[in-house]
């Protein structure tokens, strides 16, 4: 056992999915041509003024409620001043003094079955900066599309004690936020970003160790790797009698290590002060009530519903609610009349395998809830066999309509006794030994005979009907 304890605090930025920006009417949209979604406010033109997007504040309230936080009743905006070309006003509008939410928590379930509450110090709404890209020709380019996009920054308490806990916290946080619908929370598109603070100290030490900041963490796995490396590095440094410097490091993926970026000599001075261009906002009880009632079903509530209503196992329900897309997909397929259990099996099995194989997100595939329910209903009513369904599944991942595909390819299951009986009698004629075995009490024989019928019918026979006819015909012999 180590004689050190680790203290981790995470700052997570979540980009909100509002229609327009936090303080201007420019649209929020990822991936458009540079500077297309901008106006004079986003450019920081002389004379422009911000107008606060009520939706962004409400999103902040939703996040606060999802994280069990208290809502601040009188919110004013603050300016955080710093010069950089992606920050055209040279200040960022944020909520430094009156964050919309404070004192919440996220409950994580650890591998050993115990759970732990990670404290949420505060969460505040603020605007994102634009994006600089370096041309390599002696100048840089600025794209202000992202400038002014509303963010919620969620600041944890420093009571995360291990890289594993940090990973579990991030997963749970992502799920909680995603199920409120306020953000896509996608690390790869930058709609979720993580800044890490970590320090270690000898167990029993009164003061925290010197904290090191880690940047450039693009996935939860990287965060875990970076923390594991940094935790060990700091322990080693301390064991060697060295002092940990207050510094910013970045995660280097190929070597799974952290590399020194810069040493911090003092705290940055952002000269925060109340934003005079925006009035104070009072958050009333009624407003909170209205936002609360507009919150969608949480992941935990869905899990309970799946277990109680659809008799799914705890594990199945958990897998289906890992992402909002999957859970919504599941609900739509079931609402469409497909068998809940079979639907769960398909999503957890075939669909997840397909997503892993193609590295796609569910909403980026050609798979639709209507097609999946169509296929499952064909199985439910005996039109196709589960074996035939394999082919149909491949087809619906290509966007084909299942019923049309089944008809076009003659995949209809053979259930007609008039057609099956002669085939079965032919098999029986050829397998006297099996008949003898059956009569001698060996039930296994029936499995063999069924297999032969399926082989003969290229898998198209309805196994249930085959079984019934077999029993009847065997009795006759």
């Amino acid at each position, binding site marked *: 056992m180590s004689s050190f304890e680790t203290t981790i605090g995470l700052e997570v930025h979540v980009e909100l999915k509002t229609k327009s920006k936090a303080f201007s009417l420019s649209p929020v949209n990822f991936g458009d041509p540079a500077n297309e979604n901008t106006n*004079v406010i986003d*450019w*920081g*033109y*002389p*004379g*422009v*003024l*911000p*107008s*606060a997007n009520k939706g962004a504040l409400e999103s902040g309230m939703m996040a606060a409620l999802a994280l069990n936080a208290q809502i601040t009743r009188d919110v004013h905006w603050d*300016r955080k*001043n710093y*010069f950089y*070309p992606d920050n*055209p*006003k*040279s*200040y960022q509008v944020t909520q430094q003094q009156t964050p919309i939410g404070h004192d919440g928590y996220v409950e994580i379930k650890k591998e050993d079955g115990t759970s732990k509450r990670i404290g949420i110090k505060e969460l505040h709404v603020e605007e994102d900066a634009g994006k600089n890209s370096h041309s390599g020709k*002696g100048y840089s380019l*600025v794209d202000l599309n992202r400038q002014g996009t509303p963010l919620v920054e969620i600041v944890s308490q420093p009571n995360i004690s291990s890289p594993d806990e940090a990973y579990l916290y991030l997963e749970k946080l992502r799920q909680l936020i995603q199920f409120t619908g306020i953000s896509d929370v996608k690390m790869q598109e930058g709609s979720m970003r993580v800044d890490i603070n970590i320090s270690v100290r000898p167990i029993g030490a009164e003061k925290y160790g010197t904290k090191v900041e880690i940047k450039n963490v693009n996935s939860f796995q990287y965060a875990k790797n970076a923390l594991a490396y940094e935790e060990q590095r700091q322990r080693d440094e301390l064991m060697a009698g060295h002092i940990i410097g207050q510094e910013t490091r970045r995660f280097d993926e190929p070597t799974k290590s952290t590399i020194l970026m810069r040493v911090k000599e003092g*705290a940055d*001075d952002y*000269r*925060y*002060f109340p934003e*005079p*261009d*925006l*009035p104070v906002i009072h958050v009333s009880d009624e407003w909170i009530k209205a936002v609360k009632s507009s919150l969608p079903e949480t992941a935990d509530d869905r899990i309970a519903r799946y277990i109680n209503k659809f008799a799914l196992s705890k594990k199945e329900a958990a897998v289906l609610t890992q992402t909002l897309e999957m859970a919504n997909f599941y609900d739509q397929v079931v609402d469409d009349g497909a068998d809940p259990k079979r639907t769960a099996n398909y999503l957890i099995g075939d669909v997840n395998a397909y997503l892993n194989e193609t590295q796609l997100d569910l909403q980026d595939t050609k798979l639709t809830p209507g097609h999946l329910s169509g296929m499952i209903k064909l199985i439910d009513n005996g039109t196709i066999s589960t074996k035939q369904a394999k082919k149909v599944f491949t087809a619906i991942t290509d966007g084909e309509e299942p019923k049309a595909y089944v008809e076009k390819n003659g995949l209809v299951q053979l259930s007609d006794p008039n057609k099956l009986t002669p085939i079965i009698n032919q098999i029986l004629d050829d397998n006297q030994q099996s008949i003898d075995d059956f009569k001698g009490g060996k039930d296994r024989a029936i499995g063999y005979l069924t297999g032969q019928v399926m082989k003969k019918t290229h898998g198209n026979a309805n196994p249930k009907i085959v079984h019934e006819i077999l029993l009847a015909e065997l009795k006759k012999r």
Partner: protein
Amino acid sequence: MTDFFNENLTSLHKKLVDKEISATELTKEALNKSKSSQSEINAFITIDDEGALKRAAEIDAVGIDPDNILSGIPFAIKDNIVTKGLKTTAASHILDNFVPVYDATVIEKLNELGIVTIGKTNMDEFAMGGSTETSYFGKTANAWDHTKVPGGSSGGSASSVASGVIPVALGSDTGGSIRQPAAFNGIVGLKPTYGRVSRWGLIAFGSSLDQIGPLTRTVEDNARVLAAISGKDQRDTTTEDQSVPDFTKGIKKGVKDLRIGVPKEYFAKGIDEGVKDVVKKAIAKYESSGAKVDEVSLPHSKYGIAAYYILASSEASSNLERFDGIRYGFSARQDGQTLEDLYVRTRSEGFGDEVKRRIMLGTFALSAGFYDAYFKKAAQVRTLIVNDFAKVFENHDIILGPTTTSPAFDLGSENDDPVKMYMNDLLTIPLNLAGLPGMSINAGFTDGLPVGLQIIGKRFDESTIYKTAYAFEQDSQLFTKHPGVNF
């Protein structure tokens, strides 16, 4: 030949409607006067011959709207109010090539009513100053004495109106920048209640203090322009949803039984005796007209200057950060330079001394470790000043006093003493801190220079200010006096 000294909006409107004069002719006269006055008073940074004549022709083509008193009227606009397609500099080198792509809300509203913008008036750089001497585009002279300052920062607007060059102008007031130049030039200048007029398109100085307002020769003209530019604006969420009355309605009701408070602090030591005499006489006139005058106290007003220079400079230090040489305006860009070098050189060369002084002051006041002692303390003082006024207004309708501590001073006389310059704002600043409306009208003369009577009202009660001002104006007929030079 139209002599603006003998005209007001009503008379000009009548001439336009009766086709005695066309908008184009009126525009030409204003342009000619503006241009011929430049060598003497230098009231303009930009005179827009082409744009103004084009606009006037359009208005003539459509015809003067008989129901709209501003139709076809020439206006001068302070150069910190953005005008689409017309250079707007805030009198700074850093914006000396800046052509806005949008109109300020006040410009949109006035254009809708058919005004003709003649040009953009000179001012202190970024409205920081009380003499129009910090402009990158040279000094403006006082209308009454060309060796004196016109006041500031709306010096160009005030001097051009007082010189009969233009009937009306817009200014902006952060700490007295409409009222003080109005006082120095003997005209009518109103700083509206904070939140009455949209700041959208006003190049920000101190955002919690700035208001746009009219500078006119008569009280009634002033009331008409204020009504035209007022109102809630979705683009400025600090504007309030208050009805905009016809401010001329009830203007003639008189001041009988008006409860007037006169703050003793406004007649303290250090205020020019000539100014005090003129203002006291004016107040005595109100008393003889049946108003009830008594002495009141604004005990915290003496801390106004200190609080103001911390708060306004703090906000300004942040507001002016956007001038970085990257997207617009002057840029010291050079191949191969670092980002920091671009910032430092652009801002070092682009800003004048007074602006730099205030940026430094504000940056210091907001710095970690100083915030509580300066910014926060100043904000607390501001609350005390708000309470001072609220207390007086519990049993008074209006407050009267001098606008300035002295009449217009000599050009160049205070340039080396910023603190002395700041002290000039002693009597105007408290209103900005409290968000109250205030007006300056001509109260008379001392040593041949106009003296301003300051009329302070309750929030959103400009109507009482206009009524109070109108009574004295009509009684004194001082608006008929003018500098005598006809440009």
